[in-house]
């Protein structure tokens, strides 16, 4: 039997068996990524709308920051967060190092600029007439934001998709702040790193497949949202 054949067979049996180890990791992955996507979007989408429509000092700086945040290496975010949360660091008292909470915080930091940046782009892409009408209506910021989001809904759904994508695919930050502790902070991506390093390629591949399925299901859902009249 060839090497690849062995790997595929092993992966298949891991998926069929779907043992407690995999179940636990999948569960934590879903919780951490959905929570951080949700919080990241709740922060990022209004931020994007504000930068697109608002008139306040520091707008240009925010736009640059969002751009940087969209491309910042996750592992760097993980490192900085680890330093902040370290036992003897400024937020050491919270005791968050190597916990799922720290992983969520790290991923919120990664997801927020992505959600903001894509939202910003889509609201700015609204026709000039729509933006002018928004300004002309004398609306409060929440009212104007609601209309702007509804009007550029497809773009805002894309912001959610992009934020989710950033989070679900991410390995560096969760590895550094979470520590990849089995049963506590191991998620699908860090599991793949761990298992492939140890030569358990089949199990790693099975985890990768589950990751793809999660992504598929999520994106089918997002697409429905985008198309709703």
């Amino acid at each position, binding site marked *: 039997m060839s090497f690849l054949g062995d790997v595929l067979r092993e992966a298949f049996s891991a998926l069929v068996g779907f043992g407690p180890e995999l179940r636990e990791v999948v569960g934590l992955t879903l919780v951490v990524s959905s929570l951080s996507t949700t919080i990241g979007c709740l922060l990022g989408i209004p931020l994007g709308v504000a930068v697109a429509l608002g008139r306040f000092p520091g707008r240009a700086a925010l736009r640059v920051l969002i751009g940087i945040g969209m491309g910042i290496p996750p592992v760097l975010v993980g490192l900085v967060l680890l330093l902040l949360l370290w036992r003897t660091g400024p937020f050491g008292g919270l005791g968050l190092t190597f916990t799922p909470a720290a992983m969520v915080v790290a991923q919120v930091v990664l997801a927020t600029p992505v959600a903001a940046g894509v939202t910003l782009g889509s609201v700015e892409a609204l026709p000039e007439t*729509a933006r*002018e009408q928004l300004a*002309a209506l004398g*609306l409060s910021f929440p009212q104007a934001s609601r209309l702007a989001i509804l009007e550029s809904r497809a773009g805002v759904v894309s912001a959610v998709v992009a934020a989710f994508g950033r989070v679900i695919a991410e390995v560096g930050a969760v590895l550094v702040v979470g520590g990849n502790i089995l049963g506590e902070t191991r998620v699908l991506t860090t599991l793949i790193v761990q298992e492939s390093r140890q030569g358990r390629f089949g199990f790693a591949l099975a985890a990768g497949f589950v990751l793809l399925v999660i992504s598929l299901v999520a994106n089918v859902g997002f697409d429905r949202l985008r198309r709703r009249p």
Partner: protein
Amino acid sequence: MSHWRYPADGSIVEVDGLSLGGRLGVIGPNGAGKTTLLRLIAGTLGDGEPAGTYLPQRPHMFRGSVRLNLSIGLATEEVHRAMQLFDRFGLDREMLDAPAVSLSGGERQRVALARALARPASPVLLDEPLTAFAAADRPEACRVISEGIGERDAVIIAHDLVELAMLADRLAVLIDGRVRQSGALAEVLAGPADQDVASLMGVSNVVDGTVMTTDDGLLELAVGARAVLGMGSGAPGDRGRALFAAESVAVHPGGVDEEGSPRNHWPGIITDLRDRGRLVEVFVDVGFPVIALVTRGSADALGLASGESVELSVKATAIRIVGM
């Protein structure tokens, strides 16, 4: 914000020289900066704060029903007002639940106009509010808009001076981004600051009066002891305004003997003659001031001079009368 410079070509639109207050009509050739001026006042352009209630030239309908669009940003009481305006602009209540994007351009504009007028903010800023209406509906639309503006200050852009005359009391002429002339409507019409303004006007005579009788589109406007017959719409008792071009006024020294087709005959006295190149502007007091435009040749042949008695005649079809 006193001016706006377009980044693309450096051209400038200035707000300086424009005094708001009352109902100001803005007129000017295409590309003069009328819309930019209005956007500067509305605060949607530049770094000013949004001010007043503003009807953009191409109003946007948001996703959602007509009802939703009509009531965006309005308090309950204002929605009620918007609904009344909606009816009076000839829109059908059955369309309220239709998606707003399905409306025609004119319908969209009327919905947006109802919404803009229903907001209590001042000044009222309207960018070509009448293009949404068919020519025949415009006089009535003007009446509704005028009531909608009420006592508030307003700035109104229009292409057609006759239509503007129904809505505005003052006029600003915008050319190349600058206010070339502004003042009371009749003042600007009677004394264009320069040739550009004059050619933009087309009509140079404005007479205010009271509509007396109407007969099939022919209106009689009482101006003091005189009557002005013209075409237009209005109800007896309404305030009315007659507009006609200096070119349409014929000058007869020593009266008119024969009965011709012109319905308006006004005896008066020449107060001034002004040289306009090959043409001469004849200022005549017939109880109200009228400007007639004649060629230099006929002015000489007729021996027109200040202090002379003349009779003016104007065909009723050359006079537009608008109810106010």
